[in-house]
């Protein structure tokens, strides 16, 4: 913002005019914050879609799993397609189970621990998928106001320097510079508020889904453990 434009104060004070008259630092900050806002909303939309799908798939899987269908059949049908959530955990455990029995496992205890590890791995992978990019929301939520404030401070600084140059303290001269500087803070808040709200909501959703999957993995582990015991007893009897 140079002295001349201040001496003849901008009569138009729309958002666009304010943005256009701002200095390059303020412009950069505002553009950066706009990009952050776009990315934040992209993550929010993506996560909402992902979680909705995940919840639906968990419900469907639980329904199928507890319908009394044979685990072998379920494994056969699920292994043919790409699975997420509980399905992935189930397949990881079943794969380990199958491998061990096809090769004739000696120790049932080792088998149990291997299956648990495989399920843990699958669970971690799933959680990573769920919680990925949520950190970005947290970062934006906490830092965007500061970035916006930085833009405002720089804008007000330059505008005051310009006022000092124009040697007029008329409010009509002072106001546009300060308004455009405050626009940066507005952008920062605009990006930060949804990010914070979405982060809190999505992270709690993710942890809920995680708990559900963990519960399933524990339950499935118990079922498999019972199966192993039954098989061992059967082998000893035979």
């Amino acid at each position: 913002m140079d002295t001349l434009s201040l001496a003849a104060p901008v009569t138009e004070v729309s958002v666009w005019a304010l943005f256009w008259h701002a200095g390059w630092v303020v412009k950069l900050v505002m553009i950066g914050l706009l990009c952050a806002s776009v990315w934040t909303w992209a993550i929010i939309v993506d996560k909402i879609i992902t979680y909705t799908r995940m919840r639906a798939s968990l419900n469907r899987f639980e329904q199928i799993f507890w319908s009394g269908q044979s685990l072998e059949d379920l494994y056969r049908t699920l292994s043919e397609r790409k699975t997420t959530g509980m399905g992935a955990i189930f397949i990881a455990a079943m794969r380990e189970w199958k491998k061990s029995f096809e090769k004739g496992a000696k120790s049932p205890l080792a088998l149990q621990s291997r299956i648990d590890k495989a399920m843990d791995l699958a669970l971690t992978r799933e959680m990573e998928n769920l919680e990925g990019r949520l950190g970005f929301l947290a970062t934006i939520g906490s830092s965007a106001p500061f970035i916006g404030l930085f833009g405002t401070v720089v804008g007000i600084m330059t505008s005051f320097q310009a006022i000092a140059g124009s040697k007029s303290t008329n409010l009509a001269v002072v106001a546009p510079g300060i308004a455009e500087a405050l626009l940066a803070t507005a952008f920062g808040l605009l990006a930060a508020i949804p990010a914070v709200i979405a982060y809190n909501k999505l992270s709690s959703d993710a942890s809920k889904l995680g708990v559900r999957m963990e519960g399933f993995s524990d339950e499935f582990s118990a079922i498999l453990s019972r199966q192993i015991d039954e098989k061992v007893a059967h082998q000893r009897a035979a």
Partner: protein
Amino acid sequence: MKTGITTSVILHAAVLTFGLFTLSAPKPYEVGDVEALPVDIVPVQSITQVQEGDKKAPKKEKSAPKPTVRPDPVQDAQKVGDNNQDMKSPPTPEVKPKPVEKTAEPPPAPEPVVKPAEKPTEQPPKKAEAKPEPVAATERTPQPQPKQEVKPDPVQQAIIAENPDAEAMKLPETAPAPDARPQPPQAQTAKAPDRKVSDKPAVKEAARQKSEDKDFSLDKVAALLNKEKASGGGAKRSTDEAALGADHTTGGEKLSQSEMDALRSQLAGCWTIPAGVVDADQLKVTVEFSLSRDGHLEGSPRVVRSAGSRQADESALRAVNICNQRGFNLPSDKYQTWANVVVHFDPSDMF
């Protein structure tokens, strides 16, 4: 992720375009055309400084008191009136003399009439009686006074003859005052026992003596007496027709306080106190300068009393010169009062 990004971009684009068209410049506040408040520096002198004149007379260009009767002027007189002495009492119409004459005439009038006739004959015995008194008291001067006593009477008579009007003046003046006053001092002095001894045979003589004593000092008293009429007012003569004004002129062509303040503030605004000088608040500079009628400097300002610091002196001169560029805003009708200005620059108030 793609769906998220596209959704977000579309969302932002929509919001921004929507904002562009709807969030246009907010309506500017409608501020009514407020006219600037005109502030005049009103000189209070129009109230506090008034010209001498007549309070009841109609207003005229030039204030003038009620014209006086006597034409002879008295030097340095302040109050308007017909008296020879400048009295503070305002001239009042002479309505009172008549009632005063009625009450005052009887006692004084016979006495002066009797005295001139009796005095020449009765003087010798009185002298004999009076002589011991002066020895005891300090009154040696009374002795020649009998001769003088004769003089005032003819003079007064002559005056009375010449100015029949003066009778009215004379009577109230001489009669009441001397009669009352000389008596108490006589009673207090050591004369009293003498009188008792000598005056016993003739009470009339005592009365005469009193009157004699009066006559002794009468001249002196008369000389000391205020012969001015109480109603006569001051001694200043006025010939103009009466016009609205006050009892006397207060103040003259002076800058009123507000005008002086205005000048002061003008100079204070132009003055930059030298910064970074040791004891800056002690630097008092007195600058004198002459102004032309249009409020600009005539010649250059000069330091009358230096502060002892060249910086301070120059800052004061600079202040005058800076103010000169705008011109001093002073009432032109009082040019005489501010043709020469002496300004004391004292920074002690500013610290």
